[in-house]
Each structure stands twice: as structure tokens, then as C-alpha cells.
């Protein structure tokens, strides 16, 4: 009769022990059907005659990381076959290099189901352990204890979680299989016990009060509750004592709510309602011109509905130079200030290069609300249409009459459309002066975001230089206008 090696794994440190033993068996070329496995003395083995497992051999055995991880979970499963099943897959991995990539392999599917069961049980252990205080509340280290019955051997893999979380107290989690004890920062395991006596804990009544009141009787869904909190856990969860009453009374409570006639408001409600409303959120921009605050509620075109806020112009009211962009972008929409996003940052640099002081320029946009479409979870800029530009012209006119600049720079086609009536041929018209509202000189150029969109680095560098030259030309125009 064949003697079969029988590997008895320890109850604590099972995962590492299995790995060691499996490695030894594999290097000794022992096929899966020739090994019997068990954890601790408790697990029955069918074979009477045993042979000790081979001594570990030195030498590297390489297996995919995903298998190592799978095994480190599956070992905690209650199924007595788990070690043998793991070893069988390990055996196959010697020749089937891509086995782990196969999401439909029968052996692996079975192991992954076990992995999921273990994962869930570890999770439920973290969730459903309930401590009771067993020491003095005033002690330097408070002491707590819990009794729990996991479905698998999951106390060992779950215990480090409690050590990380409850490091400043001593605690003990007793299960039928093992006891985890955490004292003065050290975690140890002992043989399992019968359910111990745990003294009453006054906090449990408060916890039940919370559980009863956070429940909404108008949305009874006991199946959902049972799916996540199966009955097998109930006996160690104090709050489940409240469930029968909550379910029994839910319907009556809802009916009573529906039937109750609306009551008259309490006497103080009227007094409070007549108080002045709390101050509204202050408008974000400190440099904002006060005359345009009303813009915040502008509904002249539909763009307001989807934007965060209107973004008015910003700068000194006596600025000689006004620069008009197209519309606020994503960042401007959030911040409520013009030219603060990527194009604005580039613009800042180029203004500096051209020797223009941004703090002396009044910066604004042809359209004051951000127009965009949603792509996935991002906002994608959309150019405003003629109607939107026309609707917003009113605001630009307000800003022009308030600031009375000597020169306006139109950045891009939308600004050109608002200021000169047409957006056509902006690349041909750039670098020239045209006549704007009331004969105001308007210098035309592109929008700085145009530079950001150019994929070719050479073209980008060339266009950036052209834009820089435009800014310098605009500055010179302004100087001439001021000298005249």
C-alpha cells in the first residue's frame, strides 16, 4: 500500500506554513493526489497511515504573484479540500504558464469562489465584531472584549485590522477556533474557547436607540438587509434585537404620518421667517467692479443655467488697456475670476514677455458664463454662438463705459465678433486695428488657448512668438494713442 505524505499545518500562521510545505512538496515532485493536508489536529484525515512531509528544499520556485495572493486567502476557508485544491493548481502552473489568465478555468473558478467567501467573511468580521467594555473606563488602557463566530478561519487574517484601529486599548476577540488578544500593543493568538461571559455595557442601549431611529419606516426592504447581514450573524449583534419591532410597526407608522393633517407652524416660525435672510455667499473676486454684481443673476441667455457663476471683468477702473477674451473656462467658472486657468497662465507669461503689467489691464470676456458639454466626467469647452455673444454684449458695453479704455485688444474670433460685428478671417485680420463700438480702436489677435491647442511644437513656438509680437504691437499702439 502506498504511504501518503500527510501535512499537518499549524492553526496559527497557516498561510506561511502551507506555502512552505507546498514548496517542499513541489520541489520533491510529489503529485497532488499523493498528499493529504490538514490544519491543526482538529481536521479529520481519511488516510490512516501517514508519512511525514518532505523536508523543505532550497531553490527558487517561481509562481505568478496572483496565485500567491489567491493562496494567501483561500487557506482560511473552512473547506477541508482547500489545501489540496490549491496544490493541484500549483501543480498545473508548472506546465501551464498562462493558467492564471484564464478567468473561466474550472479549478480556478472554484478557488476564486473560496477566495470571495473568505474575503467576505474577513470583511464581516471587521464589521460585526461588537466589543463590550470589561475594564475600568478611567484606566490608562481601557479593556474591551468580544465574542464572534466567523464562518471561516478568518480571525487571524482579520486581527491586524483591529490592532491598527484600536491600538490605544487592550482587547480580546474570542471565537470557537482561536482567541486574538491585544495587550500593550502586542497581538497574540490562543486556542479557541466556549462563549465567555461578558458584562453588560450601557453603550449598547444608546446604540440600539440610534439603530431604531436611523431606520426609515417608509422604505422597508428586509431582503436587502438580510443579503448583507445574514441571520447567522444576528445572535452576536445587539442591535438585531430591535429588528422585529421595527418591521412590525413600520406600516402603521407610515400610515399615521400620511393620515396626520398638516399642523400649524409653531409660534416662533413666523418670527424667524420675518428675520432678514442670512447673508449670501460673498462674490469670490476681490478685484470685482461693484457695478456688475448684478451680473451674477443674469439670465439674458440660457448659458447661466449650467454654469457655476458669471465671471465679470477684473482690473482697475481707470485702465487704459482692456483685453477681451472669449468666455470663462473650467477654472474661471469655478473661481469666478477671468484668465486664471491654463490659457490665463500662459497669457500672464506672454504679457510679461511683452512688457505689459497685468495689474494695469482690465481683463474680461465677450461672454460671461462658461459654455461646455459633458464628455464622460469632464467639461469640454464649446464656443458661444452668435446669439449668446449678442446677448452678452450688453455687459461688455457696461464694462467699456465704466472703464473707458483707450485701446481694446480682442483675443480671438468671439471677442472680434462682439467688438467688430464679425468673427470671420481672424488669422488674416490679426495684428491690425479696426473700429469698435463708438469708434473705439480695437486691436485684433488670436486667443492664447489657440496656442495651447497646437500639437506640433514647432508651429506652437512660431505662433507663440507671433502672439508675443502682437502684444508688443498693441502696447505700442496704446503708447501712440496716449501720446496723441
Amino acid at each position, binding site marked *: 500500500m502506498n504511504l501518503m505524505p500527510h501535512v499537518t499545518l499549524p492553526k496559527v500562521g497557516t498561510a506561511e506554513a502551507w506555502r512552505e510545505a507546498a514548496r517542499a512538496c513541489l520541489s520533491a515532485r510529489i503529485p497532488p493526489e499523493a498528499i493529504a493536508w490538514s490544519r491543526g489536529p482538529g481536521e479529520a484525515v481519511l488516510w490512516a497511515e501517514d508519512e511525514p512531509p518532505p523536508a523543505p528544499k532550497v531553490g527558487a520556485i517561481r509562481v505568478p504573484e496572483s496565485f500567491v495572493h489567491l493562496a494567501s486567502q483561500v487557506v482560511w476557508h473552512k473547506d477541508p479540500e482547500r489545501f489540496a485544491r490549491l496544490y493541484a493548481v500549483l501543480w498545473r502552473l508548472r506546465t501551464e504558464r498562462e493558467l492564471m489568465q484564464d*478567468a473561466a478555468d474550472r479549478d480556478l473558478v472554484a478557488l476564486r469562489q473560496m477566495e470571495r467567501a473568505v474575503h467576505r467573511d474577513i470583511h464581516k468580521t471587521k464589521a460585526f465584531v*461588537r*466589543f463590550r467594555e470589561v475594564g475600568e473606563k478611567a484606566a490608562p488602557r481601557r479593556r474591551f472584549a468580544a465574542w464572534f463566530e466567523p464562518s471561516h478561519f478568518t480571525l487571524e487574517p482579520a486581527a491586524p485590522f483591529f490592532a491598527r484601529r484600536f*491600538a490605544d486599548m487592550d482587547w480580546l476577540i474570542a471565537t470557537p477556533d482561536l482567541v486574538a488578544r491585544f495587550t500593550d500593543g502586542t497581538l497574540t493568538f490562543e486556542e479557541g474557547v466556549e462563549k465567555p461571559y461578558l458584562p453588560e455595557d450601557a453603550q449598547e442601549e444608546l*446604540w440600539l436607540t440610534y439603530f431604531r431611529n436611523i431606520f426609515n419606516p417608509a*422604505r422597508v426592504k*428586509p431582503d436587502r*438587509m438580510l443579503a448583507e447581514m445574514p441571520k447567522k450573524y444576528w445572535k452576536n449583534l445587539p442591535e438585531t434585537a430591535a429588528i422585529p419591532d421595527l418591521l412590525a410597526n413600520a406600516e402603521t407608522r407610515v400610515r399615521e*404620518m400620511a393620515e396626520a393633517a398638516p399642523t400649524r407652524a409653531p409660534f416662533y416660525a413666523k418670527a424667524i421667517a420675518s428675520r432678514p435672510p442670512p447673508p449670501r455667499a460673498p462674490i469670490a473676486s476681490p478685484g470685482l467692479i461693484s457695478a456688475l454684481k448684478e451680473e451674477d443673476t443674469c439670465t439674458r441667455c440660457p448659458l447661466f443655467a449650467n454654469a457655476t457663476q458669471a465671471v465679470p471683468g477684473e482690473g482697475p477702473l481707470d485702465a487704459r488697456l482692456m483685453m477681451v477674451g472669449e468666455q470663462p473656462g473650467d477654472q474661471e467658472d*469655478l473661481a469666478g475670476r477671468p484668465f486664471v486657468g491654463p490659457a490665463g497662465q500662459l497669457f500672464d507669461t506672454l504679457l510679461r514677455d511683452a512688457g505689459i503689467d497685468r495689474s494695469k489691464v482690465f481683463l474680461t470676456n465677450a461672454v460671461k458664463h462658461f459654455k461646455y458639454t459633458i464628455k464622460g466626467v469632464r467639461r469640454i469647452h464649446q464656443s458661444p454662438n452668435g446669439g449668446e455673444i449678442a446677448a452678452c454684449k450688453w455687459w461688455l458695453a457696461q464694462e467699456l463705459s465704466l472703464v473707458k479704455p483707450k485701446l481694446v485688444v480682442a483675443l480671438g474670433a468671439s471677442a472680434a465678433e462682439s467688438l467688430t460685428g464679425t468673427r470671420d478671417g481672424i488669422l488674416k485680420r490679426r495684428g491690425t486695428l479696426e473700429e469698435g463700438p463708438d469708434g473705439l480702436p480695437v486691436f485684433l489677435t488670436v486667443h492664447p488657448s489657440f496656442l495651447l491647442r497646437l500639437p506640433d511644437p514647432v508651429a506652437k513656438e512660431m505662433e507663440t512668438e507671433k502672439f508675443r509680437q502682437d502684444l508688443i504691437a498693441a502696447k505700442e499702439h496704446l503708447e501712440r494713442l496716449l501720446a496723441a
Partner: protein
Amino acid sequence: MTLTLQDKLAILSDAARYDASCASSGTERRDSRDGKGLGSTDGNGICHAYTPDGRCVSLLKILMTNFCVFDCAYCVNRVSSNVRRARFSPEEVVSLTIEFYRRNYIEGLFLSSGIIKSPDDTMRDMVRIVRTLREEHGFRGYIHLKTIPGASPELIEEAGLHADRISVNIELPTEVSLARFAPEKDAGAIRKHMGDIRLRREAAEDTTLKGTQPKKFVPAGQSTQMIVGADATNDSTILKQSARLYGSYGLKRVYYSAFSPIPDSTAKLPLVKPPLLREHRLYQADWLMRFYEFSAEEIAKDGNLDLAIDPKLAWALQNREAFPVKVQRATREMLLRVPGFGTKTVDRILQTRPHRTLRYDDLLRMGASLKKAQPFIELADWTPGALLDTADLRAKFAPEPEQLSLF
């Protein structure tokens, strides 16, 4: 009559139950192994209990007070309601949080509040509570703080440095409804508040020029909630609003809360059975937008979602020309559109198919729901044939119409 702690807890958790969010996931890793504090977070939320409404209890979700100067029609705490009022002292909130946490009842605190006096007064008291938890008690568990639009930037800044998540509820899907049912709330202020939070989060993510990482600002991000069924807004409008909120403010979640009866309701909003199925369909649609590359426009063209079948199946039935999908060759994008294929199934298909030909049984083992998928896919050993074009395909999936009952 003075209220006991238990009375207050009953009143102020009852008042908090209409906030759907109880998430405790997505934050940074922390623990207390240094022995100087209490608590840990590892990015994964834990639901510590489930109430019979099927909702998870992860956080101690309470109001600091249910006194409120606002008069929002849908809200149990509105000024014109006759519910019992209470207010926790900061010490009471701190003690409940810590003691519940030590017994492993909760992952942390979700603190909200009625508006007392002004946004700043309310926000200041709430910030004081979370500061005490973090600084005096070394609490490293999860904190979700409801912030109040209009509160001063310094308070929001401090709130965001202590809290893992911040949220402000948009409440109703349109500005018109908000003006009608929550006259004191200002939709523009809510949007600006969300925009401000996003900018602060982004600023805290940027490494400074010296290479130092600034302290994280709400590492678990911001979320919001919309009440469904209190006004007449349709699902299409709701989903487009959600898409804008995700896109504009980088929200982690938009929660949909079926308007449900409240004690002492107002005549403005008749009490009906909460539209739970509609809420469920909206969550499914929301999922399709965030993880399945669907747009709001595709899911609910100009009306409401089909209540009888899920929105992905509804889309597939209306776009049959896009099917059957050849599972062995189709793009990830197309596989994600197959009813009955979840993201995990699609990942498994993509992982396995370079190595071998997929068959019907393989997909079953990979976790696909083939009852749903089979009319829409082609495999080496399966073609839907005429099944895809049968006129009554929808009827195969839709349940029998339910008898309507009086409520």
C-alpha cells in the same frame, strides 16, 4: 423637561435619516499604531450594520441640532414643523462618536445640522466638534461633514482639513423647484460652494515648489444628494444635472433620495409612497454614466427611465442595430454595453480571450448574467439568431405589471 442623552440621540438621528449617504470609503490610509490616538481608515468603507430599510449603517449619522431657520417644504426639520427639537453639546457628540467607535459599531461620524442663526455660527460649532475629535482625542476614524454654503472661507478651509468628506446637498434637481420648495436656499451659492471645494482639493493635491505635500483637503472628496419625487422633474433632467455635477465639481457621488413621508408634513407636498424603484433605476443609470461610458442623453432621452427593466437593457433594446456583439473580438466599450455584463465580467473576458476561444459555459463561470446577455452576443458556440429581432423581446425581461394599490 430636560432631554436625556438618549432622547437627544433619538431626535437627532431620526432627523438625520433622510440623508442617503453613509459611505466611509475612498479616503487616505491612517492608523493609530503609534498608540497616540484611536482609529484607522484604509480606503475601504465598512458597513457595520443594516437596518430593515436595507441601508447600511457605517457612520454615526446625526444632526448637531434640528433647530433650523429655513423652511424647506420637504424637510422634517423645517422651521414650520412641530417636531421635537434638540441640540447636542459638542462633548455629547464627541463622546458618542468615541464610545461607539471603540465598540466597533461605526466607522466614524457624519455630522450635519439645521441652520441656527447664520451659516457661520452653525459652521463654527460643527468645526469645533470635529477639531475636538481630531486634536484632543486623536480620532483617526472617518468624518463626513455637511458644510453650509455661505460660511466663511476660513471655516470651510478648517472643516476640509479635519473631514474626510464634505457634502452640500443640491436638494432638488432644478433651480425652479429649489426656489419653490426651499426658498431660503440659493442654487447659485450651492454651485459656487462646490466649485470652491473642488479648487481647494486641487490646490491641496499640487506639490509645492519646495516639493512638500500640503495637508490633504477632504481626501474622500465631496458628494451631494437630490430628492427624487418631491417635484415633477423627469429622470432625463435629473441625470443631465448629475452629469454636470460630476463634470463640474468632481463629485465622488450624487445620491438620489426618494422623497419619503416625514412626520408633520406640510400641505405643499402630499405624502405618497416613496418612489423606491425609480430611485433604484436612477442609481443604475448613474453607474452607467460613471463606469460604463454612457452619456446622460443616451440613457434617458427626454423622459423617465423604464421602471420595468434596467436602463442598460432598455438602451440595448432600443439600439438593437448595435448587436449582436462578438465577444471574442469586440472593444471594451462595446462589451460594457452588453446587458448582463458587469465591469468585472468584461475585465475577465479581456484577460482570457487572447489565450483561448470563449464559449457559452466560460461566460457563465466568469459571472456573466447570460439570461440577459444571450440575445445580444455571439460566441463560438452561440448566436442569438432571430432572438434579437423578436418583437416581444422586452416582454421576456419585463416582469408582469403589478397590481396598483391604494396607499
